[in-house]
């Protein structure tokens, strides 16, 4: 009879433990849920980025077609002839030079002492390296 009368007093610490446990589980579940939602959000963003990449890729392919059409020799030739009035050069001449003459010409063009270091090519006015000749 006494036991039945004070049972609620005896059970109090147990119920608080139960509440703590319940809260912990709830918080964990909520945290997991939040993480899952965040994961879904990230997936959505990846999906969006993937579709943007796809669109860019398709755009790139379309542009590469247009680019190659612009580089078409037929287009360039007809533009050069019709729009710019260009014609084939008639003053092309073939000059035959002996090998010995070529060797001689090379010897004259290039000085004996070649500049090799970076500093030798440094332009003192602009302080930048410049191309030979």
């Amino acid at each position, binding site marked *: 009879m006494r036991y*039945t*009368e004070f049972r609620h007093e005896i059970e109090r610490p147990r119920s608080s433990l139960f509440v703590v446990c319940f809260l912990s589980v709830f918080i964990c579940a909520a945290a997991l849920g939040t993480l899952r939602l965040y994961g879904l959000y*990230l*997936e*959505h963003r*990846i*999906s969006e980025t*993937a*579709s943007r*990449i*796809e669109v860019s*890729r*398709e755009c790139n*392919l*379309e542009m*590469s*077609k247009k*680019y*190659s*059409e612009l*580089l*078409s*020799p*037929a287009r360039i*030739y007809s533009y050069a002839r019709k729009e710019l009035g260009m014609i*084939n*050069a008639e*003053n*092309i*001449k*073939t*000059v*035959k*030079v*002996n*090998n010995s003459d*070529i060797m001689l010409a090379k010897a004259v063009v290039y000085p004996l002492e070649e500049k090799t270091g970076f500093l030798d090519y440094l332009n003192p006015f602009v302080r930048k390296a410049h191309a030979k000749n």
Partner: protein
Amino acid sequence: MPRIKKNEPENIRRSKSVWRAAYFILILLAVGTAWIQLKPDARVVRQSHKQYWASVAVSASRGEITDRNNIPLAVSIPATSFFIDPKYWDPKSADLLVKPFGKNIAMKFSKNLPGRFHWIIRNVPKGKAEKLVNQEIPGLYKINEKIRVYPHKELASHLLGFCDIDDYGQAGIELAWNHILFSPPRTRFLTRDSKGKTLDIMGGKSGVLKNTSGSIRLTIDSRFQQIMEWRLNEAAKATNSSWGAAVCVDPTNGEILALASYPALDPNDRTNLKDQNAVRNNVVGRVFEPGSIFKPITMSIAIETGAANKNSSYNCRGTMKLFDKTMSEVNKKAHGVQDLTHVLMNSCNIGMTIMSMGVPKHQAYGMLKQFGFGEKTEAELFGEEVGLIKSPEEWLGTVPANIFIGQGIAITPLQAVMAIASIANGGALLKPYLVAEVLDSDGKVIHKGGRRVRYQVMSAKTAEFMREAMKRVVSEGGGKQAFSEKISIAGKTGTAQIATGGQYVKGQYVASFVGFWPAEKPKYVMIISLGEPKGARYYGGQIAAPIFKSIAEDISQISPSDEPIGSKVNIEAN
């Protein structure tokens, strides 16, 4: 007042155990439900997948083909294909298909159809497809695909080849290098809503599909190619020829710089592919009797075998009785006593006939094989013919003489040009190649084309003699129409009769010119062949030589190395 709890009667206690039993059954049901959910039956899974998920094949982009200067020659662009799922399709909606696809297609889908998948149309351009997509017709779905496009239309179409509707190579480089260019279609999983409409909610899991296709850089120069195609088409139309072929190679390494075939073909329009004559690549897929363009080759064989030398002379009286036949010159013109160079300059059949008598037939046959006749050149092109060359046992009567004048043997234009390239480069027969580089999907070079010598078919001395003789053919002999003030051309004309059913048909010829320039140090070797020209002019020297000259002159405007045109001086070392 404290509440006094009454003792529960026995019957109520019993009712508690009933509740427990009920809880137990509920738990059992929950476990059963969980079990079904976690370990479902395979048939149920299949059915649900069909209902809620759609696996859509997404075609990947086919690899690009570019010329030697990286100008794209074949690219893949996005396109849309449409299909119908009869489960969601209302035949009354067929009227909406009339405008975009025509009456015939609309009629086909105006009745109930079996199955779950029916193509309506493949590879519709994006602009046209978007109008239909925006209408959102139930049961009509789209798939994003790629369509192969050749931006320069006819340019290099015979060597590039073409693809089928599924982007699989069917001819030319597209077929030969399909394993590099083709990227198999991937599967993308999409969800279906209650109306069967597909939604991409998988996000990153279906992801960006990585392209695994490689790309190819050819040895072709699109500018040379354009010049060659223009000139060949012009000439073939002017002479009313049935077919034409032209190919230009670099004799130093075997690079094919331009390759053209007439009739031209625009592979972007698939209806053009029905014309078998236009689809055929005449440079590798057509065999013909070469005629006199074969003489430099047989003459070099005679020199190499010792049957002829620089001091040899041949007396031509216009006709010559040989076995049961009479060999004769054009118009039976007698050339008199000639040395080797004059035999070639006059394209003397009698001189070549006499020369053939001194060459052992087995040796001549072996050398012709070494020159690559009767074998594939191994260029990276499908549909290559090997030609026809009789075995030495069949070299009876006038056969050797006929072969020495370029009749009774069938070759392809590519075989001819490679054989002449061996004269141009000092005696090495090279393997022709079209592919300069093959790159994988990451841009890494996985294959590089390069010089490959098949045989040393003649000595450098013989080659030099033949070059000089061929130069005189153009400057003083039968190839004068190829003579140019701007560049020094060497070559040989040829007019071969066409045999049909074992008999030569009168009035049917193949007119050719094969040569190289600059004659002293050749950089280009080229052949022009025009098949079955109709009209008064049908000789190679009359119709093929002038095209050769104009192409060579046009190319000289570009090469070497894109110098500014205007006051251009080509310097050649002797």
